[in-house]
């Protein structure tokens, strides 16, 4: 199944995501930020990196590029969109998921393995996990502290996808590090499932994110 991986200047997890999507049984291909039409794809992944040098705010400039029109259109066609790390920051900047990922509370770039809790399995991406299952995936970001002034709404609408299970390394509100939109088809997560997608990497826990996403297709 055809999955588009969006590339911006400064994206750097695109090839890792490509590999993970192949492992999950998908047919990935890259698409550059200046395209508008994504209708050939059945699903979209916005990978991590430092699009536009993180200038202004992480994800702010990518959020106004032409391809975002395509992303908004594909969402209306009920096709899944996954944003990982910088991709998550971009989805939050566009407002396709609620809240914002901003500077870590300790102002440091944090790169480490983390234990995460899958808070909901109603999204395609998390449909192969058990609710409250604890999984292991790495994070690598300086701007990942989740903040939302309407966090209650996320509880009410079951929009919290991932939380840190033990320590909360970046000071995120209620340790939230993954959220989705209301219908669960757009998912933004700071941890990197592609870096936990084969045993040689230290964990295979992330692969189900991609397998789940491809399940419907």
């Amino acid at each position, binding site marked *: 199944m055809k999955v588009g991986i969006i590339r911006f200047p400064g994206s750097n997890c695109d090839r890792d995501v490509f590999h993970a999507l192949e492992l999950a049984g998908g047919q990935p291909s890259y698409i550059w930020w200046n395209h508008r039409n994504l209708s050939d794809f059945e699903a979209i992944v916005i990978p991590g990196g430092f699009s536009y040098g993180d200038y*202004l705010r992480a994800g*702010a400039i990518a959020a*106004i590029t032409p391809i975002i029109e395509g992303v908004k259109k594909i969402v209306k066609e009920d096709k899944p969109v996954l944003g990982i790390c910088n991709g998550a920051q971009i989805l939050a900047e566009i407002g396709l998921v609620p809240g*914002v990922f901003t500077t*870590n*509370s*300790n*102002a440091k770039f944090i790169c480490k393995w983390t234990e995460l809790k899958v808070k909901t399995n109603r999204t395609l991406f998390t449909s192969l996990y058990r609710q409250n299952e604890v999984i292991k995936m790495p994070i690598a970001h300086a701007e990942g502290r989740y*903040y*939302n002034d309407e966090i209650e709404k996320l509880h009410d609408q079951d929009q919290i996808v991932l939380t840190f299970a033990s320590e909360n390394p970046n000071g995120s509100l209620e340790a939230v590090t993954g959220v989705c939109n209301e219908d669960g088809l757009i998912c933004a997560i700071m941890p990197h499932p592609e870096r936990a997608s084969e045993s040689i990497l230290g964990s295979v826990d992330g692969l189900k994110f991609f397998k789940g996403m491809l399940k419907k297709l």
Partner: protein
Amino acid sequence: MKYDAEVKISLKKGMLNPEAATIQRALSLLEYQVENTKTLQIIKFSLPGESEKNIHDEVDEMCQRLLCNPVIHNYEIKITPQLKDE
């Protein structure tokens, strides 16, 4: 007519500012005891327009669409007419 625009972006009250906290700790290493440290971002540019009001509205739109994130930011806009072309 050309105008100078200045947008001053700050974090909303109560938002954690790790950069400011780090600066305040560094100042205390130098034995300066300060409180309420804040960091602000200032973006300046000039643009042509018909009136201060029009320019203000246009810059306000820029803030909403790109320069600020309304979830965490407050902003102030200052518009000054240029006396001559710079």
